[in-house]
């Protein structure tokens, strides 16, 4: 086979390898107010519904709350405010408990929260935008590229055949003797190329399989109770930390104990107003029946809610653990959530849209390391921002001032070192 012939084959092969390009972009639509609302208010308040406290929609029309200073005084010190204010006294009587004080909330924060509440209270609100939401663009482009490459491939094939026939004809015309054609299945070039491709592909698959041993991306086991994060964290906007509070303090995010569930479900005894629930197989789930399962564990009689107390809980719920790390990995939620201010969704995906929880990330070391390469540390660039722990990093402060660095990544403070996670 001539060199020329070989190169045409090569072109054919190369042209058949095509790559799809998918552009991913994150929608960032979380206002400052929403952040504060989620972290401070959401465990008791909902915008549209009554929870432990009143629904906040339209709060500016009620009482003196149009004046945000009044609102601030109430939030900062409810006890003091209520002492002289019959309206809030009425609230306490209605809801049975006094509002928690948030002394660190500022007027700016109140403005932001109210802005968020007003926006969220608008009729036909936009679907809750989770930060893990993925918008896929350019799908049409890929099809377009695919069609073009297919066409080009066919054209190349036709041209090659034409070329080969023309050469045969010209050879015949010139009287050059052509050797008998070798069928393509005995063509050594084809065989070699195919074997190489198979070897590379096979090797890639084996290596990928081996690396993936023990990893369980997309793991979505059936749990003892159909607990929907979509209903709780998504629709009802309960702050993640209300249930997984130890994520701020401990290495474990910890699954809430039954008494935490019962804080709300003593009152919420049925699933009524939300959208229909379906499991992965598409069967409809009866939300009220699932709440009944919780009552089995809690030893709770819905007809006599006031007789129940946490000491009556019968047994803990045996959830199936989804996110498993090998024993030689030390992972601390507190480090990431509290010190690093990483959003839950960064690792757990759009958990607020999941009916049953599914492992989104593969939890591989490469995945961890990549994030450590790219993420910024909560560095105290100045006295108002960041974590003061980093004030001892004198070198970095100098480099930042001198413009040698523009941000401090986790890798800069040793985030890629083995012993950060393995000890």
């Amino acid at each position, binding site marked *: 086979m001539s060199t020329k012939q070989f190169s045409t084959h090569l072109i054919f092969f190369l042209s058949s390898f095509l790559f799809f390009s998918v552009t991913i972009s994150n929608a960032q639509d979380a206002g400052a107010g929403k952040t504060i609302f989620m972290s401070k208010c959401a465990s008791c308040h909902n915008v549209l519904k009554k929870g432990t406290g009143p629904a906040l929609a339209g709060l500016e029309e009620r009482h003196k709350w149009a004046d945000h200073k009044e609102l601030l005084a109430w939030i900062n010190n409810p006890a003091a405010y209520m002492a002289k204010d019959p309206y809030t006294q009425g609230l306490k009587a209605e809801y049975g408990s006094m509002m928690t004080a948030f002394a660190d909330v500022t007027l700016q924060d109140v403005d932001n929260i109210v802005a968020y509440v007003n926006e969220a209270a608008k009729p036909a609100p936009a679907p809750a935008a989770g930060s893990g939401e993925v918008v896929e663009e350019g799908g049409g482009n890929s099809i377009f590229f695919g069609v073009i490459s297919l066409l080009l491939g066919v054209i190349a094939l036709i041209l090659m055949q034409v070329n080969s026939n023309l050469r045969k004809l010209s050879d015949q015309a010139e009287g050059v003797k052509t050797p008998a054609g070798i069928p393509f299945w005995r063509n050594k070039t084809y065989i070699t190329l195919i074997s190489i491709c198979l070897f590379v592909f096979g090797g890639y698959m084996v290596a990928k399989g081996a690396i993936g041993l023990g990893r369980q991306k997309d793991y979505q086991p059936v749990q003892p109770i159909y607990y929907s994060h979509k209903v709780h964290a998504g629709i009802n906007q309960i702050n993640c930390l209300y249930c997984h509070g130890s994520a701020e303090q401990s290495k474990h995010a910890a699954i809430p*104990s039954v*008494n935490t569930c019962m804080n709300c479900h003593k009152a919420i005894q049925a699933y009524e107003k939300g959208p229909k629930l379906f499991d992965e197989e598409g069967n409809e789930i009866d939300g009220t029946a699932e709440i009944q399962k919780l009552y089995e564990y809690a030893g709770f009689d819905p007809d006599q809610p006031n007789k129940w107390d946490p000491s009556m809980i019968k047994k*803990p719920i045996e959830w199936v653990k989804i996110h498993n790390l090998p024993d*030689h990995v*030390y992972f601390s939620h507190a480090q990431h959530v509290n010190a690093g201010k990483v959003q839950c969704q960064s690792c757990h995906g759009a958990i607020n849209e999941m009916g049953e929880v599914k492992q989104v990330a593969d939890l591989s070391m490469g995945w961890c390391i990549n994030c450590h390469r790219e993420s910024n540390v909560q560095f105290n660039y100045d006295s108002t921002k960041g974590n003061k722990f980093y004030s001892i990093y004198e070198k970095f402060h100098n480099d930042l001032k001198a413009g040698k660095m523009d941000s401090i990544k986790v890798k800069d*403070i040793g985030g890629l070192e083995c012993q950060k996670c393995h*000890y």
Partner: protein
Amino acid sequence: MSQKKYWQSFGEVNESESFKQQNQDEFREELPFEGMDNKGLLDATAPRRDFLKYLGFSTAAATLAASCKIPVKKAIPFANRPENIIPGVAQYYATTFVQEGDVVPVLAKVRDGRPIKIEGNDRCAFTGGGTSARVQASVLDLYDTHRLRFPQQKVGNGEEARFEEVPTYEQMDKLVADAIKAAGGSTVLLTSTLNSPSTKAIIAAYPGIRHVQYDAVSFSGMLLANEATGFGRRLPSYEFGAAKVIVSLGADFLGSWLSPVEFAKGYTAGRKIDEKNPSMSKHYQFEGYLSLTGASADERFVCRPSETGLVALALLSAVSGKGAEGIKDAKLKAGIEKAAADLRKNTGASLVVCGSNDTNTQVVVNAINQAIGAYGKTIDWGKPVNYRAGIDADFEQLVKDMEAGSVGTLLVYGANPVYTYHNAAAFKTALKKIKTTVSFSERLDETTECCQFILPSNHYLESWGDASPKAGVTSFIQPTIYPLFKTRAFQTSLLKWSGNDNSYEEYFKQYWIGQLGAEDAFNTILQEGIQDKALPVSAGSYSSTALAAAAQAITTAAAVTGTEIVLYQKASIGTGTGATNPWLQELPDGVSKASWGNYALVSMTMAKELLGVNLIDGTEKEINNYEFYPLKPVIKITMGGKEMELPVLAVPGMQSNTIAVALGYGRSEKLGRTCAGVGKNAYIFTSQTGNGVSYQGIVTVADAGRKEKVAQSQIHNTYDDRVEVVRETTLATLVKHPTVIPDYRNHLEETYGKSKDGKTTDYRSEGTLYPTHVQPGIKWGMNIDMNACYGCGACVVACHAENNVPVVGKSEVLRYHDMHWLRIDRYFVSDATNPDELKGVVFQPMMCQHCDNAPCENVCPVAATNHSSEGINQMTYNRCIGTRYCANNCPYKVRRFNWADYTGADSFPNNRDQQLVGKLDPVVEQMNDELTRMVLNPDVTVRSRGVIEKCSFCFQRLQAAKLEAKKANRPLQDGEAKTACQTACAANAIVFGNVNDPNSAITAVRANNTNRSYYVLEQLHVLPNVSYLAKVRNTDEVLEVEEHHAAPAAHGTETKHETAKPEAAHH
């Protein structure tokens, strides 16, 4: 002029050829290839086929493993989470370690419901947060597989007798009540020293009970002597910190005598040196064998154990200015006179203690303390201690009563006379005469085995309780875990049987609320762990009435010739309570460096004369035969009709006719796999002299003509003739030549640190081809004061507990496979010509030095060990493939290889028993029991077979401290991050912190001690992050340094000694 020599083993002191050869290899074994027949890989019988077999097996195994399903794991939260408990965050509870009268206030670290580590309680003034090896190891006792798990009673007689479970305590109470009623006679409660006020109140309310306290090692002589000299039957508080001169007559006050943690704190405070004005306490030791305390002495003189009384008398006469009367040995006499001169000079600031249980000797010692004005200054009678209360005569009387049949019921708690009593056979016979015998022991010990009823009590970490170590001091015990087994506090039994239906928990609370007046006060002590209240205690006044008779008795006692035995306690095993604890058994003894068993310590002279082992000037072959095989010659020790065969260990500094044997070994095999068959019970050599129990005696020794293995660890790793490992000097030298160490550093700086243009010097960056590491934030560093370290081993056990360091058992220690991340090297200092003439001992805790230019990092083929940006030499177990290149290249010999699956962490379950390693000791299996594994620290990876491990600077603690600071949005404060060894140390010898912080303690200690601070093997330019402060002995000897640039005193180099000039002698 003499040569000084620092040595760890006899081969080293004599520089034998095979010693050098042996130490060329880090690991002494050949690689264990099967079927190689030592012919090399190519000539092996079937290397290719074997290779293919292994390859095939591993592929098949991998395929199998790959096809296995990932197990479903459950996450089970609390049903009702208690407030303040966060899963994954450790809680600390203040409680108290109490054992046989010893009291150490501690904090128990409880992680997710399991106590996993003991820390000292730094609210306690007299321990200052210090601990001992036994305190550190006590948490492992909680998870001992051989604890008694339910109440039981003996059924059947004679050979047929066995224990059967009694289903409930109600039934048990009824059984015992009936038995007590049926037995008639008197009821006797036999305990070790009890210092719990509430328990004493319970006993006082028990109708007709007689309480006898019995100590395994008695302090009866001291108690009676104090009574005879006008202070009452009490023991005083000793203020070692206030003493400038300390004379100990055979008292091992740093290792085993009375309250070592407390004394070590005071003692080491006086040993720390301020460089600007160098001074330190002076410690004289007179003893027959080399004790842990004697090893720290500035001047040490040997005497026969039987001479202790005479030495005390001579010291008394010398203190009163009459010279050391009655001492023939010139050296000893000079020593006594010198000590007396110093004592006199420091009247009111000196202290004499004596380890003897002989009342007469202690009367004389009290006379000395009176003469030197110690009372009220270094000995505080206003705060008497309650550590020991047993009187020998009381117990003798009890045995007589038992024999006479007047005792109907015997209740035993904490005492174990069948094991510890000098005439155990008589006690056992007497015990059989008692109708009802009840034991409250946690384990089936020797005495419990002979009892009818067993009501096992709780471990202290499961108990409520209190202890009063000293007058006015109360330390509470609170439970940190629900009792693991069906056990009950012994006080509850006493309450029930005396007609009080309260449990001890309720009684305890009511008692203290009554005492303190309010529940708040009770809760405060519970929280703090300890309350120290000044109590008006009558100090008593000294009376000399008993002195003349005591002196008379001492002088008329016949002089002893021939061989004497002295029985001592190891800091780890104690009286035998530590024998069931694997961590303590594996802890090498401070002086002998031997673990797992006892042996007879003999002098080198005796080894030569009796056994023909010439270690003083013998041939190389002779020394090697003794030194390099774990097999040691066995001697037969005979005293009266009792005999025992024990292997010998020759150590320098022994009185030449004295042998020393540790107590506490040879326990019953029913106490567990740990202590079964380990050592021999030396209590058989104790005797009743009529004047208290004696822990010494006259014996005959003979060569038994055979050998036994002794598991010693020190000779495993040496530095191959490298100098500057230990630096030791005398106080006089430090004053005269203060800059020996800085001079050496300057020499290195000038020789190797010159920059290319020759203008500036920087040893750190110029001395290497490698790039230097940058630590932008924190750089961790450690400093160890060798002057404070006395070799107790608390740090070693703390490291075991904190870092899940495996226990390997005797067979593996014998094969040099011990896994300690932190070891305490012991160096003898002596004349090169006469190794038996001991000048001193240096203890050097040695762990990974976290070198900034680490030789291990360069040679790892898989980069499993590398450097962190905080200056830590990291070790990644899951990346390690076990080439052991790093260990070979480590100049400090601190890397440890997992030769077998010691921890049960391997995926293949039977990896512990196979041809390569051989069957491991039962103790390894015990450590891998599901129950025992509860002690593991969940924050530290449990290493599997085939990987290297080493000190990590307790990285998990550093991370935790940093996280706390980040959570609180503040910089890390100095002292927040502490290593386990640092917190365990009673001497505060270890300082740890951020070197980059100019205000940290570690920066200060290095800056304030420039003349003593050095790095081990500094000239290798490995740039360690652990610095040491040179050991200083307080003597007048001036070591002349020949040349300032040469390496100072260290093994292999020579220094001149000159006699102190008169002006230098009186500093």
